């Protein structure tokens, strides 16, 4: 998997830069002066206890949450897989992937992706009947629809079985080899070898 | 004492009612606002642990 090597590779290239991020919740300082740079091939893991602000930091990086201080500069497009999957209860995995492939203008082979994520069997079952792990797989399958250098993953392993975890690890490894980068909030053991850990 | 009040004839009840409503609403608001400000100031002073040195 090659990620437009001309644009997003090389030692001095940064796919994502954040500096001096600070977040207030009410008057509580969630975190302050957080900076990070993400280069091609890297996997940055955000650590911290529940409520430390991992999800919030990830949302700031994605541009969903506004930081009180600091700046984020996104030089490359990113994929977002949030804590909440983004599936509608009536949507089937296939319909979900079709919808987003169309929305993003990605000419992906949805059947192949479903197959790769082990979703061939429940491909036409509405999300409300899927298990948590199957919904998670569907959400993660979105990142395969088109190639974007940065993946922002919030708790990617939640609800996944051993086989699902392995799949995600393979995906991430392949993505990194192709010059992509991952920023993930992970609770518990980290499945992949992080190039850097940030503890909040 | 009553002689001091003007005579509004048949409309007296309505007129006094209006000013009564005004007195209750505005007076109540003024008292409520002052109490609120006072308690806010006091709780800040308590928190800072000194003798209320807040401007």
């Amino acid at each position, binding site marked *: 998997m090659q990620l437009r090597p001309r644009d997003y590779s090389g030692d001095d290239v940064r796919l994502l830069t954040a500096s001096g991020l600070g977040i207030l919740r*009410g*008057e509580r300082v969630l975190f302050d002066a957080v900076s990070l740079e993400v280069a091609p091939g890297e996997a940055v893991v955000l650590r911290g206890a529940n409520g430390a602000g991992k999800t919030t930091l990830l949302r700031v990086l994605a541009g969903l949450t506004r930081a009180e201080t600091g700046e984020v500069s996104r030089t490359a497009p990113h994929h977002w897989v949030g804590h909440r999957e983004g599936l509608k209860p009536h949507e089937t995995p296939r319909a979900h992937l079709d919808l987003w492939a169309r929305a993003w203008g990605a000419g992906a082979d949805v059947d192949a992706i479903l197959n790769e994520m082990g979703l061939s069997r429940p491909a036409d079952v509405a999300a409300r009947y899927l298990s948590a792990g199957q919904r998670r797989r569907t959400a993660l399958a979105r990142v395969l629809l088109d190639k974007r250098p940065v993946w922002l993953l919030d708790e990617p392993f939640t609800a996944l079985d051993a086989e699902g975890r392995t799949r995600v690890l393979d995906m991430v490894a392949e993505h990194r080899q192709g010059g992509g980068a991952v920023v993930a909030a992970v609770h518990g053991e980290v499945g992949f070898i992080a190039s850097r850990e940030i503890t909040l | 004492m009553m002689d001091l009040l003007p005579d509004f004839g048949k*409309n007296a009840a*309505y007129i006094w009612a*209006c*000013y009564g409503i*005004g007195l209750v609403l505005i007076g109540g608001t003024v008292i409520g606002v002052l109490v609120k400000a006072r308690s806010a100031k006091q709780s*800040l002073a308590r928190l800072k642990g000194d003798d209320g040195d807040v*401007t």
Partner: protein
Amino acid sequence: MGMLSAFANPHRFLALSRWLAPLFYLLGAALIAWGLWQGLWIVPRDDYQGGDIMRVMFIHVPAAWLAMASYSAMAGASFVWFIWRHELADIAAKAIAPLGATWTALCLATGAVWGKPTWGTWWQWDDARMMSVLFLFFLFLGYMALRAAMDSRQKAARAGAILAMVGALNVPLIKFSVDLFTSLHQDSSVITAEGPKMASVYLWPLLMSGLGHSLLFGALVMTLMRAEIWTRQAARHRARLLAGA
């Protein structure tokens, strides 16, 4: 400009409002008292305006004026906050809302009491002003309810600012539609008190009452803003203590 920048800084605001608010309370109370004395005891009854009942205007008209002015002020503060994100503007908008709702309610209540002997009914659906003020009251209520439903002051500020600005852009349309609605029914308005045609014997007490109510309103806004600043300072202090700093 010096005034504006003083208002833009919480500490300078606290210092300024510390003496300005009491001054406004005193002046406001004095002017309202003078207006009342004039309105109730001195000015003659106006038989073209329904006799003595027109004396209600010395509280009703200032209330109506403040209902409109306070919503504009709230929307203006919201706009300032939305553009410059200055916390004091949000504090002002938050403080104005309950006070504006109070004066709006006062306007509605005195209007209803005025209406009973004049129209023979407490509520006249055909009166454009009453209807407009009623909807203004709902706008205030919605604003306060929305702010209260948000879980942090930052979100309350953003949601409130969006709603106040949407409301402000709609107020002219609401007013226009209500005017059109009522103009198609019989013209029953009695409250022709405002306007230059009014005799100056009524004008001065009315103007002074209006000014007095405005000063009192301003004083209350300042006091509520001071309370809000202290509350936020306390919350910040508490957060610092919690963080162990």
